[in-house]
Structures are given as structure tokens and as C-alpha cells.
């Protein structure tokens, strides 16, 4: 230990020392004279003039060089690590070998090197010292528990030999924590953790960054693999369907290396067949999105893959995705009676739902005058109740049972009907408050139904006028009711609530032209369709997973890339296909220095206190204020300032000297 540097590569910056020297030299030609007939009339100056002194004075040049050296030193982040002097030497040290089995270790011969290195570490451990073996990637897996037994050495050797590469990404913090918990649960003494890994920055990306091993846990880093490798791969992938039926697959290609990548082929494969190829060029350190467009023959489920064809690419050269044909939802519209109105509410609803090409729902219609037993509500994904008027008590009860058992309901309320009372919506008697014409002044743009309208050109709902509406007092209503939209007089106009497993919306108005202009407003159709999507699809699960994640229908985390299928909650008959990928950044081979790893995860000299030491901004101190390690970069920066000040005053002095002549 002792003085070391966190970023020694910055020492390359010392090459900049030639700059002041070159400037010093380059300025000399400016001294080339302009030949003049005679200087006999020019007042004599016995010293060089200011300008030349400023540039060419050797001491000034040396001061500038010194400032550059100190600046370079500051950026190399020198530090002094205190020794763990209070480590009990008399106690035998236990050894835990942590073997990195993450996906990135599969690059070239890295994993074989890692196993060989782990065996070397094992060979160096005395037979009377305890030893354990841990595989780690997303988390640590204790293969050979830490035990002081000679037989453990043989088991450890076998475990190292048997180690298999996983598809999980690296998470140093979580793995070290698990290994640490195991070690402290078994023994109470100093432990040396031998971490055999390729030490990539991507492993530090996730996990608790402030957690550190206590001082009696010494980290021994064993680095394997080569830094001389192409460093690029595919990252995040997204699939989106457009209204015209076109599908767009977008994938981000990352170039983490310092070299430019020219004409890299990216292929799209659907159900095992390559259908498109894109050519990409990537500048060093840049990422670029490329997209594939295609129109599926029919709404079918398919499994896709985007990959790079290159022998030198990293482990993340492919990304899987799945596309599931949109599920058709059955919607029951309970129609209102036409009465004197030429345009009853259900006509607007039907027209809005059928306005989409190839709509993802099937519409069934019954009259509100029919008996609820005839509706068969339980068979539908959603019931759209166009009016509350005329509902019998039995119908209301049936609907409530439907909702409680997980049904979805959208109600366009009327002033009459008991269902609102049953749902806990407190209607203000007309004798207390009379509804007056109003307009929408607020909608919850954060709600999924209205998130579509967040853009400034769409979020003004004030053009939606209400001549009549059902006045509701939310304070006296069911507390699980929330308002999604309000009128300019403060009255709620759209409510959302839950009952049992079910979910419902209440539109506190009749969707007729006598009541509101909503049906004529361009916001009506998208608002209705978003509402139905929200009510019927919000229990869908994600279609893409990363290795290590646990889908809700599985008990074990995912360990293999590719595809998995699961039953949809809505459509039992149709399995849903999901894609499983390696973490998007596991392929980032940007190395991390072993010093940084040590400082990130280990605290030496802090005693046995496991609490996180305090960072002072330029080092760490323990709870007694003693330095654990100190960085001197800021001191170097301070010295830079001092040198620059000296240079400035010296320069000023030179100027004065000349002026005084």
C-alpha cells in the first residue's frame, strides 16, 4: 500500500509539457527583426520588453510546466491508503475464492483463464487455512462453504473445475454482500476474498455503491482477460406497432471502444428467418439506434432476434424480442333507449369503438331494458353501461357481482339509477345543488388514460362543454374513488374506482349532445379507447425480461436467454411469448482498474466497524476521523493555483521592471 493513483493513465497528459516548450520556441521567430535604417533616434531600452519576457522568460516557462505537471497529478487522483495495522495477525486467515461466471466472461478464453487463475490462488493457500468457493454473476452462489478443513481444498478445486459460464450479468456489490454474509455467518476472523474476474465497469453499474467490506475482509483482485478487444454490442430493444399496422423494431447499438466501427451489419430475424439487414457505422463512445420496419402478414405471434454478424463482437451480440398478436377483447354495450333523442349515447360509443381499423375488440350490444340475466356480463372483458336509468335492482346486483369478481365497467351515469349509490358515489341532491353549464378545466395528465394528451397542443380540454352532469360530493363518497377530471366549478366529472378485484370508471354525464359536447370533440375517441385499453390491459405483464428477473408466474429467476411463454390472464387459450435477454450493458468491456475496485468495495484500516465510512470528498475517514485513504488531487489543484499566482506576479514584476527603464 502507500501512494498510488486512481487514474494513472492521466500521466499521459505529461506529454503536454512540450506545449510550453514549443510555444517558447515558436515565439522565437517573432524576434526576427525588421531591418530599419537606423535606431539612432529610437529611445534606448536596456531590457527586453514585456511581451517577450512574458512568453520567453525561462522561469515563466518552468512555472507553466510545473503547473501542467501538478494539473496532471491532480487528475491522476493520487491517494494514500492507510494500512490495516490493527488487523489481528495471529489469527489464521480464511480464504474465499469468488469466481466470476457472468456472461461477459465468455469472451474468448477469459473464462478458462479465470479458472486457471482461481486454481493458482487455491494452490497458494496453506492447507491449514480455511477456503471456500463462490460463483458470482448477478449474485453470489456459495458452491463450497467456507470451512477450515483439508478436504475443502479438494472440493474447492473440483468446484473451480466444474464452474460453468452463466448468462447473468455482473453485480459486484450484491455478490460481495452475499459472500460477506456467508463468511460472517460461518467464522469470526479475517477473511481474504480472492475475486477472479475481468473487472469491467458494467459490473459496478448496478448494486449498492456505498456498501463496503469491513476492514477484516481483505480483497485480493485477480484480473483475467484482455483489454485488447472490440467493445461494442446491442443494447436496449423496443417494438412498437403503428396505426397503419406496421411494426417497428428499434435497437440501440453501443460502441464503448475508442475505435470507429465501420459498416457493421445488423440483422433482423423473425421466427428463425433473416428478413432485413441494416448497415451501421459508430463513432467511438457513441450509441446509435437503428430500426427495422415491416408489416406482419397477419396478427400473429412471432419470435424475433436482432443480431450482429461479426466474429469479434462481444457476448451481447444478439437481442431477443417477442411480438404477440393483440388480444381481441369482448365488450358488452348496454344500450340506452333512444327516446326522443336522435343520437343516443350508445351510438357515439359504438361509432368511436369501430373507428379503428382492425379493432382489438368485439362489440356485443344489449338493451338496458333487457333483464340483466340475459346479458351474461361475466363472459365479457368490459361492460359499457350507457345509462344508469332503468336498471333494476337485480341488474345492479349482477353488475356489482361482475365487478367484484374482476370485471371491468365503464358507466355513463344518469341522474337516476341506484348503481352509483352501490358503488359509493354520493350524488348531491338537486335541491342542494343544481348543475350549471361548465367545461373541463383539469384532467389528470399523469394518469395512463390521459398521458396521451400531455403534449401542449392536446392538453386543453376546455372545449368540452357540459350542459348537464351528475353532481357528486367526493368527500362523502367512497374513499377509493378518485377524480380524473374536473369542471371549472370544481365538480368531478370522471371517477375511477375499484371494487373487489374489479375496476370501473364513472363518467358523471350522459354521452348525449343534450348533456355534453364531448362526443363531437376530437378528444372523445382516443379518450374512450385509452380508457378501455387501461381497464382491460392493465394486468398484462411485460414481454421482455433480463436474466435474473423472476416473472410472476415463475418461482425461479430466469437463467437462459431466448423465449419463454406464459398464459395470459385474460385469454387462457392463447399463450403469451416473452423474450429473455442478457443485461444490455453486460457487453460493455470498459475495464475498471483494480485500485478502483478495491476502493469501491473495501475498507481497510477501519477496524471491525461495518458501518459505511464517511466520505470527505477527497478520501474516506472512519468514525473517529482517522483517514482510511486520502486523495491528494485537490491539494495538487491548490498547488496549481499557487503556481499560477506566482507566475502571474512574477510576470507583473517583469512588466514593471521594463516600464521603469
Amino acid at each position: 500500500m502507500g501512494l498510488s493513483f486512481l487514474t494513472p493513465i492521466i500521466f499521459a497528459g505529461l506529454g503536454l509539457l512540450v506545449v510550453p516548450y514549443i510555444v517558447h520556441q515558436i515565439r522565437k521567430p517573432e524576434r526576427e527583426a525588421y531591418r530599419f535604417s537606423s535606431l539612432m533616434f529610437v529611445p534606448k531600452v536596456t531590457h527586453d520588453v514585456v511581451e517577450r519576457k512574458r512568453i520567453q522568460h525561462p522561469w515563466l516557462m518552468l512555472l507553466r510546466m510545473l503547473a501542467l505537471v501538478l494539473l496532471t497529478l491532480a487528475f491522476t487522483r493520487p491517494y494514500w491508503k492507510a494500512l490495516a495495522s490493527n488487523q489481528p495477525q495471529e489469527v489464521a486467515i480464511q480464504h474465499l475464492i469468488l469466481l466470476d461466471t457472468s456472461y461477459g466472461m465468455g469472451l474468448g478464453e477469459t473464462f478458462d483463464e479465470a479458472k486457471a487463475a482461481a486454481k493458482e490462488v487455491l494452490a497458494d493457500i496453506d492447507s491449514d487455512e480455511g477456503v471456500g468457493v463462490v460463483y458470482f454473476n448477478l449474485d453470489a452462489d456459495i458452491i463450497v462453504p467456507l470451512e477450515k478443513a483439508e478436504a475443502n481444498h479438494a472440493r474447492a478445486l473440483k468446484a473451480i473445475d466444474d464452474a460453468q459460464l452463466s448468462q447473468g450479468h455482473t453485480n459486484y456489490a450484491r455478490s460481495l454482500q452475499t459472500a460477506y454474509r456467508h463468511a460472517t455467518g460461518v467464522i469470526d476472523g479475517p477473511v481474504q476474498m480472492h475475486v477472479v474476474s475481468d473487472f469491467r465497469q458494467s459490473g459496478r453499474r448496478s448494486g449498492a455503491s456505498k456498501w463496503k467490506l469491513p476492514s477484516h475482509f481483505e480483497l485480493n483482485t485477480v484480473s483475467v482477460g484482455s483489454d485488447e478487444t472490440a467493445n461494442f454490442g446491442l443494447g436496449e430493444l423496443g417494438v412498437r406497432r403503428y396505426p397503419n399496422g406496421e411494426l417497428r423494431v428499434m435497437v440501440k447499438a453501443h460502441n464503448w471502444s475508442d475505435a470507429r466501427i465501420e459498416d457493421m451489419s445488423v440483422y433482423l430475424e423473425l421466427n428463425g428467418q433473416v428478413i432485413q439487414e441494416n448497415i451501421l457505422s459508430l463513432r467511438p463512445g457513441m450509441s446509435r439506434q437503428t430500426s427495422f420496419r415491416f408489416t406482419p402478414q397477419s396478427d400473429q405471434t412471432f419470435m424475433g432476434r436482432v443480431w450482429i454478424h461479426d466474429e469479434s463482437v462481444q457476448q451481447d451480440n444478439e437481442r431477443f424480442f417477442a411480438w404477440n398478436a393483440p388480444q381481441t377483447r369482448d365488450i358488452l354495450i348496454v344500450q340506452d333507449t333512444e327516446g326522443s333523442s336522435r343520437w343516443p349515447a350508445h351510438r357515439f360509443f359504438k361509432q368511436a369503438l369501430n373507428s379503428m381499423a382492425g379493432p382489438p375488440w368485439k362489440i356485443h350490444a344489449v338493451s338496458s331494458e333487457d333483464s340483466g340475466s340475459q346479458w351474461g356480463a361475466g363472459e365479457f372483458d368490459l361492460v359499457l353501461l350507457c345509462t344508469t336509468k332503468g336498471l333494476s335492482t337485480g341488474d345492479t346486483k349482477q353488475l356489482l357481482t361482475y365487478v367484484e369478481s374482476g370485471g371491468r365497467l365503464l358507466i355513463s351515469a344518469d341522474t337516476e339509477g341506484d348503481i352509483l349509490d352501490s358503488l359509493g358515489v354520493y350524488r348531491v341532491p338537486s335541491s342542494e345543488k343544481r348543475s350549471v353549464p361548465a367545461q373541463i378545466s383539469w384532467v389528470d395528465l399523469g394518469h395512463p388514460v390521459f398521458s396521451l394528451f400531455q403534449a401542449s397542443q392536446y392538453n386543453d380540454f376546455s372545449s368540452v362543454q357540459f350542459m348537464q352532469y351528475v353532481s357528486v360530493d367526493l368527500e362523502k363518497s367512497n374513499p377509493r374513488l378518485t377524480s380524473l377530471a374536473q369542471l371549472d366549478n370544481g365538480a368531478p366529472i370522471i371517477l375511477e374506482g375499484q371494487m373487489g378485484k374489479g375496476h370501473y370508471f364513472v363518467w358523471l354525464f350522459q354521452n348525449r349532445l343534450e348533456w355534453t359536447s364531448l362526443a363531437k370533440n376530437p378528444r372523445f375517441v382516443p379518450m374512450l379507447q385509452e380508457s378501455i385499453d387501461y381497464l382491460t390491459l392493465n394486468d398484462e405483464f411485460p414481454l421482455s425480461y433480463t436474466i435474473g428477473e423472476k416473472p410472476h408466474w415463475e418461482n425461479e429467476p430466469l437463467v437462459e436467454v431466448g423465449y419463454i411463454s406464459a398464459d395470459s390472464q385474460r385469454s387462457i387459450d392463447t399463450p403469451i411469448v416473452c423474450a429473455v435477454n442478457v443485461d444490455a450493458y453486460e457487453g460493455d468491456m470498459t475495464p475498471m482498474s483494480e485500485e478502483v475496485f478495491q476502493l469501491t468495495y473495501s475498507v481497510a484500516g477501519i477496524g471491525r466497524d461495518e458501518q459505511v465510512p464517511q466520505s470527505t470528498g477527497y478520501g474516506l475517514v472512519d468514525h473517529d476521523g482517522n483517514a482510511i485513504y486520502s486523495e491528494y488531487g485537490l491539494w495538487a489543484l491548490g498547488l496549481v493555483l499557487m503556481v499560477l499566482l506566482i507566475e502571474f506576479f512574477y510576470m507583473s514584476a517583469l512588466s514593471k521592471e521594463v516600464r521603469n527603464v
Partner: protein
Amino acid sequence: MEYTLRHIEPEQLATITDLSLLARTVVDGLMSGLHRSPHSGSSVEFAQYRPYTQGDDLRNIDWQLYGRTDRLHIKQYEEETTLRATVLLDCSASMEYGSQSLSKFSYARMLAASLAMLLHSQRDAVGLITYHHELLAYIPPRSSDKHVRRVLVELDNALPAGQTDTSGALHYLGDVLHPRGMVILISDLLQPVDAMVHQLKSLRARHQDVLVLHISDPAERDFSFDSSLTLVDAESGREQFMDPSAIRDEYLSNRTQHFTTIRKACHASEIAIAEFSTDEPLDRALQVFLNHRTRTTAQSSSMRRRAPGGG
């Protein structure tokens, strides 16, 4: 006297490489503009008799008068109108400087050539001395065609170099010159004043008619440099970095003082002095010379009329 000169700009002259052609061009241009030559009838004319005194040249005794009067008389003539002019050309390194199309040296050389051609065209004798810190060439005054060509060739071969020692050249000239000649000094006068003025006065005391033609460059006159720069003295090689705007006033003051001193000393000794900038036409310099010549001729004639028998 009224002149209507056809001026030839220095830029145009700079394109003529043949010095004799250049000199002829200048002189022809000048002479064609004159209405009347002020130097017509230059010949040996009888003025008066005076009694012979010991030491007089026996060749001047009028023997016919001796035969008639039995007394020795010396026959006196009008002063010889043929001028014996010597041009001193400063060939020091400082003369090499030029911010315009012509350096001071080129300008001075053209001027010298033109003067030689002008004098020759009037059948005057012309000689040449070129010098810097030492004497480079001395050609005594003669009036033959061949001689003028020699002067022009010498001028053509002259190159500016070295430091200035005008007083040395003047001192040498004082030793070799025929009395009552004319000395035309063409120089930038960038040298210590005292020694030079002393030698000029010395020439004047020897009845030499002295004309100083001071050549200067516009950049020397104005010191119109914009930004900081290093100047090197053309003669000494001394370098100095400077901010021209900061020292311009002091420079101009020093320069004015230097040339005022020279001018005053010249005026005090009846030495004609005139300054020419390299951006001025050469004709003006020749015109100054002619004016001076006319004035001095008239003065000497009137002096003789006022003091008959004076020698």
C-alpha cells in the same frame, strides 16, 4: 523662373534598369520643360587687365599690350562657366532601407546619375565619390562622354553596405578637389552631426560650393509602424523590440532635433540643404540643383562686379 516639369514618379523610374537611360530620361524630361536655359553662352570671355605681380602665371600676360605700353599686364577673364562638380554618394547600409518601391540608395543613385547626366549635358565636368565607412571609388571631375559613362558604370556597380563615415569622405575630398568646385553630397545623414558639419564647413572654407541632398524614407519620417516589432539597425546590427506607438513621439522629436541641428549648421555656413523623400519625383531634386546653381552663379557675378580686381 517658371518651370513646367513633366514629373516622373519614382515607381516608374524603378522599372528602368539601365541607369544611363534612366538618367537621360530624367534630364530630358527636365530640360524639355525649361523655357530658357540659364547657362547659355558659357565660354572664356575677357574681363579686364591688371598689373602683373610676382607669382602670376606668365601665360596670362598680354604680350601685345606689353609691346604697346612696355608694361606687363595680366589679362583677366570672366570666371570659367564650366562647373567642376563632385557627387558624393553615401553607400552605407542604412541607405538600403526602403518602405516604398525605391530604397533610399536606389533613389540616391538615380539622383546622382541624373545629376551627372544633367551636368554633362551642360558641358560641365562631373566627378564621383562613393563611400561608406571607407572610400569605395573616386572619379575626378571630367566632362567627356566617356567619363560620364564611367561615372554611370560606377554608380551602377555600387552596393550599400557597412557603416557611414561621411566626414571621412569629405575630408578626403577636401584634399583632392580643385578649388571653387561644387560638392553635392547625397546621403541620409544618419550619423553624428559634429564631425560631418565640421568637414562641410571646411569644404566651404575652401570655396567649394556645397549642396547637401538629404534622402529620407516616408517610414523614417513618420515612424508609422502599427504593432510591436523588433527593429534591427541596418548598420550596427543592434536589435530592439518596441511598441512603436509608445516611442513614436520621442523618436520624431529626436529625429527633428538631429536634422534641425544639421540644417542650422548648413545655413550658417551658406551650405544649401534640401530633403527628398523616396516617394517624390526625381525632377524636384534636379530642380533644386538648378535653382541653386543659378543663384550661386548670379551671386558670384555680382560679387565680381562689386569688387573689380578681386581675386
